[in-house]
């Protein structure tokens, strides 16, 4: 019998199940990837971010929360202008990491 109920999928980030392979691979060549303090400078200054959803800060988070597909989709907006790298207060080589993700 159908009572009209259904189970909604959990909206949690399933930290027990996520696949960190890409993030861990990046970390080997870019150890500074762990040092982001989520200040948002890269996103605020981003040339692509003026018109699209592009945000390096969020890409880093996506990779650490199992949303690799979303991250790769977002990266397509990037014009590799390097402005983000200029402003990062942690000195993260953002442009290089963006290139490495797509490799």
């Amino acid at each position, binding site marked *: 019998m159908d009572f009209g109920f259904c189970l909604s999928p959990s909206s949690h980030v399933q930290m027990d199940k996520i696949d960190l392979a890409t993030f861990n691979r990046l970390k080997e060549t870019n150890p500074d990837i762990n040092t982001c303090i989520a*200040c948002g*400078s890269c*996103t*605020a200054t981003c040339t692509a971010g003026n018109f699209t959803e592009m945000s390096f*800060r969020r890409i880093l988070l996506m990779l650490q929360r199992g949303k690799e597909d979303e991250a790769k989709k977002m990266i397509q907006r990037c014009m590799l202008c390097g402005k983000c790298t200029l*402003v990062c207060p942690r000195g993260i080589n953002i442009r290089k990491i963006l290139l490495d993700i797509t490799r």
Partner: protein
Amino acid sequence: MKENILIIGGGAAGMEAATQLKKLGLTPIIIEKSDALGGHIAQWDRLFPAFHPAKDVVAPMLESVKGIDVLLNTEVNDIQCDADGFKAVLTNGKTIDAKAVVLATGFDLFKAERKQEYGYGIYNNVITSLELEKFFRTGKDERINNPKKIGFVHCVGARDVKVGNTYCSKVCCTTALKQACEMKEVFPNAEVYTFYMDLRMFGPGYEDLYLKTQRDFDVKCIRGRVCEVSENMDGRLVIKAEDTLFGKPLKMTLDLLVLMCSMEKNKSIDKIQQQLGVANNSDGFMQNRDMYLGMNGTAKDGVFVAGTCTAPKSLPDTIAEARSVAVEVFNYINNK
């Protein structure tokens, strides 16, 4: 016998150390490079977290150093050390013999023009936290004309590899919120925003100030670091940041932008510091023996440190260190 203790620096740390050393029966001599005692704190209007007038702290300090030898407009030119102690040649040509030296040389404010993207010295309406404090004290600053929208930028010259300072300057978060509230007092109709990365409200009563900032003063704290400042056609400032909690880049037009400048070690003492054999730590401040039991000691016997010459500190921290350095010096002299 007179046991001279040479204190370099006549700010809060130097004055308080001198007062305590005198009470302990020693003979402190303060060397101050400017024309007055008091240091940075004498330029401050009110103190966080409870808006206590700075002069209520500075005045008793000035009172208690009366009777202590103070040399104003004077610096140490050269200092030598032998078995008897230290011999300092001053810029006024005099020589002072001392049994111990206390470095209480404090900090320099980060030069805001070094962070070019914030436009200090380029745009008229960008000012520093120190200049705002002066405005509170004197009521005068041509750049502050009944602003309707005011922004504060945290961490200017701190937590930023691009300027070479990776440390947190400790007191500027609390100062920003204090000054934000004070701006609302002066300009009740203004909108006030602060742009922070983390709000470091580390001390007693500081979190209460944060609460007051939100509840009583309606100051808006936005979590994001300002990355660019420009000027529009009307001469107003346009800032860019990401509102990281909302997850979107943000633009805002402001009438006044206040930069919370960090502390850097006062570098005018570098030569003497080198002669004394006191190194810098990785943040460019003076290296003390260790940050726990050796906070007032240095690698060199008879050379002591107190206050912000070793790291950014609040006024209560500085006073506490100045008092403890007096005990350290006293013990050093008596165990020799």
